[in-house]
């Protein structure tokens, strides 16, 4: 069923059942997100896609569009700042040293930081000690950079048994990302690449192969994360 709604005051048409993030994208409006992967079930963990729907703050990835919705993405200064604040929170919660990170230039968190005009985190940096897990032969977990998006937990499974390879241990501030080393050892090179590409930050790193694009020609340097998100829709 076709419905009508507005995004930043502009009237758009959409099919009911689609979520706000996709509908906005189809209409040329970029909404940042660090956990949502199009075509996969919503995780709703990062909240950086927060927008205002009829004046109320909602996550654009988990909210289906409805007829008559008034959505504010960039027209409302408060919601623009909230998205920026969430990205900043992630930078202060973990330990993100872009210059020394393999994923720099390919990192969705870094790229999103640029998109939301972040200069420095307004929140105090915590410098939480986190331990690297290198038990598996195929990947290592650089936990300093994990943002608990849960993409790997939900979307990477052992191909034979369907078991979880990645999981979360503990809760709240005591959470940590874990990897089942035995299952990880059985990952194919393709699956390892899928997992490390899926990771929005530089937490899941392929042990067998590095990145060889030179600075200036890395993924988000060639084309911004915003352009890539919008381009997907127009393909």
């Amino acid at each position: 069923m076709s419905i009508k709604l507005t995004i930043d005051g502009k009237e758009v048409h959409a099919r009911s059942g689609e979520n706000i993030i996709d509908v906005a994208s189809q209409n040329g409006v970029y909404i940042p997100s660090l956990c949502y992967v199009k075509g996969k079930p919503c995780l709703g963990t990062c909240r950086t896609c927060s927008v205002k729907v009829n004046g109320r703050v909602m996550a654009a990835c988990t909210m289906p569009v409805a007829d008559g919705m008034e959505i504010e993405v960039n027209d409302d200064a408060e919601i623009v700042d909230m998205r920026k604040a969430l990205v900043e929170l992630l930078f202060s919660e973990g330990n993100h040293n872009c210059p020394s990170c393999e994923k720099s230039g390919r990192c969705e968190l870094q790229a999103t930081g640029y998109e939301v005009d972040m200069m420095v985190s307004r929140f105090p940096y915590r410098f939480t000690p986190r331990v690297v897990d290198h038990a598996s032969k195929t990947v290592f977990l650089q936990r300093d950079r994990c943002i608990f998006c849960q993409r790997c937990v939900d979307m990477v499974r052992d191909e034979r048994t369907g078991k979880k390879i990645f999981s979360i241990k503990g809760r709240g501030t005591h959470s940590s990302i874990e990897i089942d080393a035995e299952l990880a050892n059985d990952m194919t090179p393709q699956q390892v690449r899928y997992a490390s590409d899926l990771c929005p930050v530089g937490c899941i790193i392929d042990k067998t192969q590095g990145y060889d694009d030179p600075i200036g020609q890395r993924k988000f340097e060639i084309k911004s994360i915003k352009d890539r998100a919008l381009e997907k829709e127009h393909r």
Partner: protein
Amino acid sequence: MSNEIQSIVDRYDSDRTRLMDMLWDVQKQQGHISDKAQAQLAQALNMSSDDVSETLTFYHFFLNKSFGKHQVYLCNTVIAKMNGYHDVRKALEQEIGCSFNSVDDSGVIGLGDANCIGLSDQEPAMMVDDVVFTRLTPAKVKEIISQLRQGKSPEEIANPGAIANTELAYVEAIVDANLRTDSIVLFKPNRDYKAILQTCLDNYIPEEVIEMISDSNLKGRGGAGFPTGLKWQFGREAEGEEKYIICNADEGEPGTFKDRVLLSHSPKDVLLGMIAAAYAIGSRYGIIYLRAEYWYIKEFLQQQIEDFRDQGLLGKQILGKDFEFDIRIQMGAGAYVCGDETALIESCEGKRGTPRVKPPYPIQQGYLGMPTSVNNVETLACASRIIEKGAAWFSDMGTEDSTGTRLLSVSGDCEKPGIYEIEWGATLNEVMTMIGAVDPRYVQISGPAGDSLSVEQDGEREFCYSDLSCNGSLMVFDHTRDILEIVRDYSEFFVEESCGICVPCRAGGVDLMHKMERIIAGRGTEQDLEEITTWSNLLKGTSRCGLGTAAPNPILATMDKFPEIYAEKLVVQKGPLLPSFDMEEALSAHELAVKKLMKEEV
């Protein structure tokens, strides 16, 4: 695989969704759930070990390593701290011979903290295995620990008369009910449940039961106040092969304990309410999600279910009708966030208690993906009275928008803490008089997630959904109490209980707590107050569930009601150093390193 683990897995038909029960069974049998046991469970359930650990490590009371033969958890709420907590804490460390979060040298007793364990009317209190000890003093602690050391079980110590744990007298031997008011709607003695249900089933079709509940204007007593009749109607209309009724008995909101008393003194009211809900919606299965802090009620509650089965009120062909319904008890394992209905459902499915994304709502897709009505204990007990006495009887009480009564769990600075049943519409001042609060200044209603009231400003406000929409918790603080410290304690509570799945609550909650610490330390500025407000709005707006959106409430509300106590603490920047900069703290790591190195050299 060991036979023990296999028989536990078999007990639940290798059903992965019953992982919570399996973990409890392993822990009860082996004292903790070792890596080996986790691996065996994982193998039997076709999961990875880490996947089992994912559930296990989410809950406070599941142990993945030995924590003594007996586990002592001392409740550390603000109410406990007003009643001698610190002395009891010291006494425990001294008598057990270890510090908190460790086990004594003999490996007999493990000592840990717990958030509110539902005993705010008789604090300080502690859990020891499956029982609790209340109104603790250092002398009492000494006695209990010495008996534990002599080899007595906690049950024997708490219940020297050896009353069977299926009896109400057992629960009463362990905790006081402190029922302070006569029955209006709830706690009605000597009800003929069979006759009430028979009359209901004979005279009303399910739609009429829903209509009756809707006409009574009963609203959810958990706090959100959603109309119960409407929820049941949605449940009836929702499509699903099965439908489920879940009774939310996870009351974890600090300061509340009414469900503890309802489930022990009127358990059949709650069961009857569940049966009515099942009949109305068309459900065959019910679950009571009972918090682990209430283990000592479990066998008694189970006996009540058995009684109903014996009388034909539960089971197949209930009272001869074509109506089937039965109830099981699901034990929680210590997670405040499981009070959120979708987190609770995840937990019932054997997973981490992380709240789901909404929509869809449980009434459309809940437990096992099927339509599920999650109702509060008190809501169900009220429903059982409405089907007996009719909608008009109920809606004549209270106010226009809030019908019937409200149970208050009263604690803090008053002469008579305990359970009060009030008609909606009573004012805060009336309640203060009723409970014998002599010098009340600040009242926290609905727990830390609720609202902070100034008795001076809010005394004439009414308890009702459109004004003081209270979930039952009422903590009273007089003029001698340090409000900022109480608020800081609440903010720490939210940090400890955050499930961590969403960024604002997991990360932002910590920053709010640090702001409170800074203000209390006398290093806060006007800018800190401004940042508290904007950061609070961030949590309120963007958090995934009610825990994150409510976490800033105590800070924001007390800033509004008692601005002077914040203002007194603020400083103005002098010189180039920010007031927030703590020279001592900044140098503490250096000092520590020097001390450590000196030791090593010697």
